[in-house]
């Protein structure tokens, strides 16, 4: 009795905790609400299975608890039952998987009109690069990295001159405009993750990874690094702002391009030189 009761409490308690506790997904702020839907579908299907199997077990424990004069049934196999259960489970699996794969297709096909934004992770912080007027990001090479050229941009690549550098500052995104985030790391693995956007992807040194999203809600969101990258991993936070078009353009106008930055650096160097 006691055993069955406590087990019953555990199974039901799980459900109660779910409804009673305030903890649940943060409100979604991107187009990836479809992920939430798949998640919730899975939640209900698996939740139902959990309750069904759990409660059935509790029932058995209570109903068939030891009695001196009871003899257990002898039944090695029941092909029909096993077949039915297998089929049912297979259907369940398909029901979960199919929507998932459809959303995944969305996730890996970047819309044509998405603008590219490069996120550069380093130990332990974030830099960003926007493609500038030509809409194309210049090529990079880790070996070009220097104080003058923190992104390692290729000076010979004409596309890189107008690239806009957002260094040690917040990233701004325009609402309802799809962006393709190109993720690059210069040292260890990192992961660009904004809980409200749902999407995340590791940044791997030696290659470029990506994902895309459309921000759908203005506001300020926290960026978390979601891949262990050394001692400072937990402190590798950042901020992303989703803004209306006007605010966004204002912000954009204040940013400097690679060329300007280079020139500035040169003049600074020059001044230092002259002073000598």
């Amino acid at each position, binding site marked *: 009795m006691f*055993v069955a009761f406590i087990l019953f409490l555990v199974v039901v308690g*799980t459900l109660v905790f779910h409804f009673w*506790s305030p*903890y*649940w997904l*943060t409100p979604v702020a991107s187009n*990836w609400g479809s*992920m939430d839907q*798949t*998640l919730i579908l*899975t*939640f209900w299907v*698996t939740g139902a*299975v*959990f309750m069904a*199997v759990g409660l*059935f*077990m509790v029932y058995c*424990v209570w109903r*068939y*608890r*030891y*009695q001196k004069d*009871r003899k*257990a*049934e*002898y*039944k*090695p*196999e029941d092909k029909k039952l*096993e077949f039915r*259960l*297998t089929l049912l*489970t297979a259907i369940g*699996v398909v029901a979960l*998987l199919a929507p*998932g*794969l459809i959303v*995944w297709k969305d*996730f*890996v096909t970047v819309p044509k009109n998405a603008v590219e934004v490069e996120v550069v992770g380093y*130990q332990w912080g974030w830099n960003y690069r926007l493609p500038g007027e030509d809409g194309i990001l210049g090529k990079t090479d*880790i*070996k070009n990295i220097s104080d003058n050229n923190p992104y390692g941009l290729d000076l010979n690549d004409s596309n890189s001159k107008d690239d806009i550098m957002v260094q040690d500052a917040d990233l701004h995104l325009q609402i309802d405009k799809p962006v393709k985030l190109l993720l690059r*790391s210069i*040292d*260890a693995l990192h992961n660009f*993750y904004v*809980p409200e956007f749902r*999407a*995340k992807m*590791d940044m791997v*040194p*030696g*290659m470029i990874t990506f994902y895309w999203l459309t921000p759908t809600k203005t506001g300020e969101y926290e960026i978390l690094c*979601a891949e*262990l990258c050394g*001692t400072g*991993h*937990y402190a590798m936070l950042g901020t992303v702002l989703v803004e209306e078009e006007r605010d966004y353009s204002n912000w954009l106008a204040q940013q400097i391009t690679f060329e300007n930055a280079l020139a500035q650096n040169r003049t600074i160097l020059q001044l230092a030189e002259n002073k000598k």
Partner: protein
Amino acid sequence: MPDEFGYKIEAKVDMAASGTSVPPIDYVPVAERPEQELYHSKSWWTTYVFSQDAKYIGIQYTCVATAIALVGLTLSLLMRIQLAFPNLSLLDASVYYQFITMHGMIMVVFFLTALFLGGFGNLLIPLMCGARDMVFPYVNMLSFWVFVLAVLVLVASFFVPGGPTGAGWTLYPPQAITAGTPGNLWGIVLMLVSLVLFVVGFTMGGLNYVITVLQARTRGMTLMRLPLSIWGIFVATILALLAFPALLVGGIMLLLDAVFGTSFFMPASVSMGELLQTEGGSPILFQHLFWFFGHPEVYIVALPAFGIVSDLISVHARKNIFGYRMMVWALVIIGALSFIVWAHHMYVAGMNPWFGYFFATTTLIIAVPTAIKVYNWVLTLWRGNIHLTVPMLFTLGFIITFLNGGLTGLFLGNVVIDVPLSDTYFVVAHFHMVMGIAPVLVVFGAVYHWFPLVTGRMLDQGLGKLHFWITFVGAYMIYTPMYYQGFLGVPRRYFEMYESSYISTVGLNVFITLSALVVGLAQIIFFYNVIRSVLKGEKAEKNPWKANSLEWQTPKMPPEHGNWGEKLPVVYRWPYDFSVPGVDKEHIPQNVSPSEVAGAKVEKT
């Protein structure tokens, strides 16, 4: 040939009841396998220390694995205290990362793998197969001592300059070997050396387990009459033999990267503002190698638990296991599938995006054979006669926690749901439910179950029940809230628990830590129980649980050197003949011939 094979094997068939045909044991030539030559120890050293008797080796493995598990447990409690009460400044960030790394690695590899395969494998395989010992006792002994060496090297890394590695148990490069990660010089090297030693030691043992099951069974013991415990351990051992190579290779390459400055996994990159000399390597390659090992590894700790639980549930519910053949096939299929799902750990690792389809599909397919196992456990309870003994309680706890953890695995396996949940506490909750509690509960159940076989004494049932309830309910309370932290996006491996601006989880965090402390301390009950019972526990009668499998049918209990005295047992039936209609005896051990239970209405052979 020795006369002992002179029996005429009687085997009644009841095709209707069992659906199987009798394995054609009659015309396999007798004495195809002659008596095993036994190793005889000569001195105290070779009896107790460098013992070649599988039973002793099993106990030695168990003790070492338990000892290192206590280290892992202590680390986890310190981590939890740090997370919930940062004001105490118990640990600093690097120490925290060192602790999670050691905690993860110790628990998965050096505790559960060693315990299930080395410990239970050695103890149970020869006994349950009806062999006198493992096939190569000497190699078996070496296996244990290499394992001890591996553990010592691992522990040594706590004492080297820089401390143990803090790269996470996944040891991903580049960070595993670059500055910015604690223990990137000495710690990582010792960790890798320790793993290589572990693999070498395990291979020696693993070959023994596999060959003993395949080639050293007793007369009448067909594969389809093996207890499911053996099936679980057997399949897990095969997985290990095929999966550890990937770890070995990844480990060697990482070692070379760390020590010789090669660029297997190291692309051109910067470390702490300095350009490294490496070029062209691929960090993702390491991840593939690691998970080609890592995913089978998680089933290596799960399958033996599945097997053992099946036996416990059947014995203590006094009912045959439901769908034995399905159970065996499910084990085999899960084992095989586990080799083609590895990249579900890498959905967001930046691999080729198209892989998502393949790996999501294969991953979710595993749910089907696993589901069959869960159903069959529960259906075994149905119309049983359930003794709520301590092993049975742990079994019930296992079913609930495994069900819970397995179902949340479906979230993660379905690639798009993994995208938001990956690397959050949802994953931590998933794998602790399914690996940190479920198999550990089985270990406890198994210890309560087989303790009399090893020591000849019973463990105290009252203390056992207390221990069970605190551990099960407590552990459930540790991890259930973590799912919800995961939904909120709280990332794992954060030294300072991330506070979502949406809703604070400080309360949850403290709750989790308090539960963990209670559960951790409750283990004292268990160890007290063990020590007390070894010394002055109630003497066990022979076959106290009235089980059918061979390990309880030895002439002496605990079994002596050589296990079976004069004659090897002859097996006539599967190990689950409980409550057979038409027979007065409630259970029929495997070595009871059909003529001795003439009244049996059905007989599954």
